[in-house]
């Protein structure tokens, strides 16, 4: 099948710039052009369609859905809704407080905070487009599992004692959020605004991700990768997670890096663990959450996630 993005990459790298097809720079430029075109085309289409369907659920709605339900139901909803809400990390504080105020257990809130940055429908479509169905399902399944179990483990440590005192005192007003305009024109406007807003927020991460992916694709020798990060390299998984945790990128930005890593023969579990640790947790995110919970809870949160990602990585490396 002729892939138009692949074709575009070939034309720019080999014809326009005259790079040799077997050179490192040629391969890197080809990868970069192809992925920039493909990823941004996919992003615009997916975000627009999601906007039209108005499937982007607001945190206010999530809170209404989740509150007052038995624990397992609340957790299921929090994980599921977390996966379909691409919320900006700048709203984690109001979100956290809103959940606490609604009497939603902290463990459930943590489940939501894990699922939300790691999985979203935009990342899912990109995963399918770039890496195929199987990998997309594995990533999403593993992400949901980590969010579910991670929240339960957090709950075991009674994290309530580390919540800042002022959080408990906040009284939230009844949400009088206006009804959205559901006419076709209203939906179209909303969808266009969403495309602009989300692209403006994530384009840097995507370009950086593609750049890193292109460098790996062009310059890192496959032999070296297979030897150090391929199958049977147990320590590669914790190393990947430890490198990934402080780094920040959007879930979408990690995908081209994963694409290049897989192409060079990095073991599947190692790649999954790396993707998750980059998307789920970062230093800026921790600093934002620090406004509502104290360091012990944050350290515990990071540790629970790191251990889960390592287990996921090892698990997949074992079965593949």
């Amino acid at each position: 099948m002729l892939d138009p993005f692949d074709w575009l990459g070939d034309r720019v790298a080999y014809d326009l710039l005259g790079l040799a097809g077997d050179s490192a720079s040629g391969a890197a430029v080809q990868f970069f052009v192809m992925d920039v075109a493909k990823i941004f085309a996919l992003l615009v289409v997916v975000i627009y369609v999601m906007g039209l369907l108005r499937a982007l659920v607001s945190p206010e709605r999530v809170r209404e859905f989740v509150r007052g339900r038995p624990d397992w139901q609340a957790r299921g909803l929090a994980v599921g809704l977390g996966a379909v809400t691409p919320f900006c990390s700048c709203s984690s504080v109001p979100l956290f407080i809103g959940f606490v105020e609604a009497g939603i257990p902290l463990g459930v809130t943590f489940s939501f905070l894990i699922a939300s940055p790691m999985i979203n429908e935009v990342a899912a479509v990109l995963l399918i487009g770039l890496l195929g169905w199987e990998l997309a399902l594995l990533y999403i399944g593993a992400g949901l599992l980590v969010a579910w179990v991670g929240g339960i483990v957090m709950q075991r440590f009674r994290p309530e004692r580390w919540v800042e005192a002022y959080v408990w005192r906040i009284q939230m007003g009844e949400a009088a959020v206006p009804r959205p305009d559901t006419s076709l024109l209203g939906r179209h406007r909303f969808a266009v605004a969403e495309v602009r807003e989300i692209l403006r927020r994530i384009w840097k991460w995507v370009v950086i991700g593609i750049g890193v992916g292109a460098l790996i694709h062009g310059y890192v020798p496959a032999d070296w990768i297979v030897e150090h990060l391929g199958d049977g390299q147990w320590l590669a998984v914790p190393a990947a997670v430890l490198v990934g945790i402080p780094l920040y990128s959007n879930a979408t930005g990690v995908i081209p890096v994963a694409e290049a890593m897989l192409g060079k023969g990095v073991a599947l579990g190692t790649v999954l663990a790396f993707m998750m640790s980059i998307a789920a947790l970062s230093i800026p995110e921790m600093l934002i959450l620090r406004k509502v919970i104290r360091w012990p809870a944050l350290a515990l949160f990071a540790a629970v996630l790191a251990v889960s990602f390592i287990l996921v990585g090892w698990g997949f490396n074992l079965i593949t």
Partner: protein
Amino acid sequence: MKQIKVLGSGCRNCEITANAIAKAAEQAGVEIDLVKVTDIAEIMSYGVMSTPGVVIDGTVVHSGGVPGPERIRAWMQASD
């Protein structure tokens, strides 16, 4: 005079929203009292979790993102 509050804990989108409102008011020749609310307790007292939010004369008219230019112009035209 309309009192417009932009709810948001100082993120970039809140700045953008506040600036867009100030500009639209100037263009429409409407006098407004624009306040940026950054205190999280006050933001939440409006029932808003996703910022930026916009409150006009005590009513939440928008939350969860930068409002579009047509929306902002419509707020300016709505009668006092």
